[in-house]
Structures are given as C-alpha cells and as structure tokens.
C-alpha cells in the first residue's frame, strides 16, 4: 500500500536527516528516484528548486511535494508527518537525558564524524543537477556566473533561483 510505503520511506529519511536541509536531498532522491522510482530525476529536481524557494525547511518541503505527487493530499500529509516523527521523538528523549547529564559527549563524537559524510551527501546531491547545469551553452555560462556570484558577492540563493526561473521563461519558451 502506497501510504504505508510513503510512511516507512520518509520515516527512514527523517531519521538520518543530520546536518540541515541540503544533505537530506540525496537521501530523498535515493529512495524516491533510484529505489522506488516514484519520480524521474527531472521531476525531483523541479521539486527541489521549488522547495528551496518557498518558506520552510527544504527537506520537509520536498517531502510534502513528493508525498503529493505519489499519494495526493493524504500522501503529502503522511510524508510530512513521518519525516519529522523520529527527529521530534529524539529531540524530546535527548532533552530528558540532557537535563541530567548536562553534556552528551557521545552525540558530540557522532556528529563530528558525521560532518564529512554530510558534506559528501551535499556534494553528491550537487551531481544530481549536472545535467541541468551543463546541458547547453546558456546553462554552462549561467552556472559559471552564478557560482562566482554566490562565492564572491554572497548573492541570495532564492533571488538567484527566481531570477534563473525568469531567464528560463525567456530562453526555453
């Protein structure tokens, strides 16, 4: 049953969503695109673009959107709720432990070793977009310019995405 599968999938995704939104994108695409083949990479990348430019955490936005595509409104609610279930339970559990121990070295150690993995996940998520970034001359130039702008001018991500959307309307019409 699709709802149960959505629940299990996003429960796992949420359970390992360390290190902020970008790193979770690869985990979601692994399950949604590669394992379950619910969406094509193109469709998933569109969802990422939208999730980045609307309010809310990008991972949760993507979960909501994927859930909608796979199982309608009910599917989107299931995906959203299951993606945050384990994080909430863990937060509350650690809250109780923390107030007793004051400092939890074990968690600190785990996080320090997970950091390079998180960077690797984001790097890997970037590869999902190579086709979009390097498909034609326009996109190659645009990618080079936007990388430079992000690096040196600290351009806002969302502004850049919306701007490139407008360019898309002109170029890909």
């Amino acid at each position: 049953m699709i709802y149960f599968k959505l629940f299990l999938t996003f429960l796992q995704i949420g359970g390992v969503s360390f290190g902020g939104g970008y790193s979770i994108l690869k985990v979601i695409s692994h399950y949604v695109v590669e394992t379950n083949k619910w969406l094509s990479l193109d469709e998933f990348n569109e969802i990422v673009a939208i999730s980045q430019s609307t309010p809310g955490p990008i991972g949760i936005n993507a979960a909501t959107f994927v859930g909608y595509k796979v199982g309608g409104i009910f599917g989107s609610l299931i995906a959203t709720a299951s993606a945050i279930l384990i994080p909430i339970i863990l937060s509350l559990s650690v809250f109780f432990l923390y107030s007793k121990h004051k400092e939890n070295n074990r968690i600190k150690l785990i996080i320090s070793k997970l950091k390079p993995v998180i960077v690797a996940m984001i790097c890997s998520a970037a590869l999902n977009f190579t086709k979009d970034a390097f498909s034609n001359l326009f996109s190659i130039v645009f990618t080079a310019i936007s990388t430079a702008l992000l690096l040196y001018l600290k351009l806002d991500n969302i502004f850049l995405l919306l701007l490139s959307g407008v360019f898309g309307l002109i170029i890909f019409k």
Partner: protein
Amino acid sequence: MVKLKKEATTVSLWKVFSITAKVGGVTIGGGYAMVPVIREEFVTKNKLLSDEEFTSLLVIAQSLPGPIAVNTSALVGYKLRKIQGTISAVVGAIFFPTLIILAIAALVSKFYNILSPFLRGMKIPLFSVLLVSVLKMWKSNVKDTEDTIIFMISFTFVSFFKLNPVFVILLTILYSLIRGSFKNKDDVKEGDR
C-alpha cells in the same frame, strides 16, 4: 481561552501555535534562517523563555537529525506546555510551508506546460548553490586526513555505486561509537568502513 486551569499554564496552546506558524510562514531559506526569528519571538518579544534556556534547547536541536526549526519548535513547545505544546509548536512550524507547497504542487500539475520553462530555469543554479555550500562547509567539517577519507568513501559509494545514504550514515555512527571506545589510541585504522 480558559486561563484559570493551572497556575503553571502561563501560555495557551493557540499562542504557541500562532508564534511558530508566524515564524514558519515568513522565513524563506529554511532552518538556520528560522532560528533567530524563533528566538526573537519566544525570548525577546513574548518573554516565554530565557536566552539561556533557549540556547540549551538549540544545542539539542542542532545535534540531532531533523530540520533545526522543527526540532527547536518541538523543544520550545515542550518546555512551555509539555507534549501538547510540542504538537502545537510543530504543527505551527510546518503549517504554512505545507499549505504553500500543496498549493504550488496543485498549480504546477495543472499548469505544467506554462510553468515548465520557469522550473527548467530554476534548476540551473542549484548545482552552483550546492557546490558553493560544499566549499563553504569544507574547512570546518572536513578537518583532517581521517575526515577526508570518510568524505571520499561516502561520496564515491553514494554517488557512483548508488549505495543507500542511510546505510552510510548508520555505518559512520557505528564507526564513531566504536572509535569512541578506543579513544586513547587516536590513530585507529578505518577498518570498518
């Protein structure tokens, strides 16, 4: 709202919900953008928590899986109104984002032909966005040879051998726990990865 139930009940569930909903609805850019706004609302404006209390909750929220805004809301909610507070705060935090995504999802599927060039354009800079975020994170997250090896192994297996990232993360947690119990011998070989 009935206010004379308990003297400990200083803040209504509706208040908790409306604060996180307000924050969630206006903050574009996800997690880290939301934290200062949550602090502003709960600590500075409404004086429901002290700055110290908020910071100690934030430390927990940061170090666990899950969006930091959701984790922080869950903890702040709990601190104020126990489990009901958690539910109100979390539902608040995701309320507008979920509604907005649902509206866009419905729009996109209805007007896909018109919107498709816009979406196609929007996808182009995401490679740069993610790449730049890797470059910015590199120094503080990949610190020594061991970290570099962990990075290379996880990147290669996840990207090119389609290994499940969940598996990689769980293995790393296991590795760090095993390594933690050999803390004295600091140069344990990376055997289990």
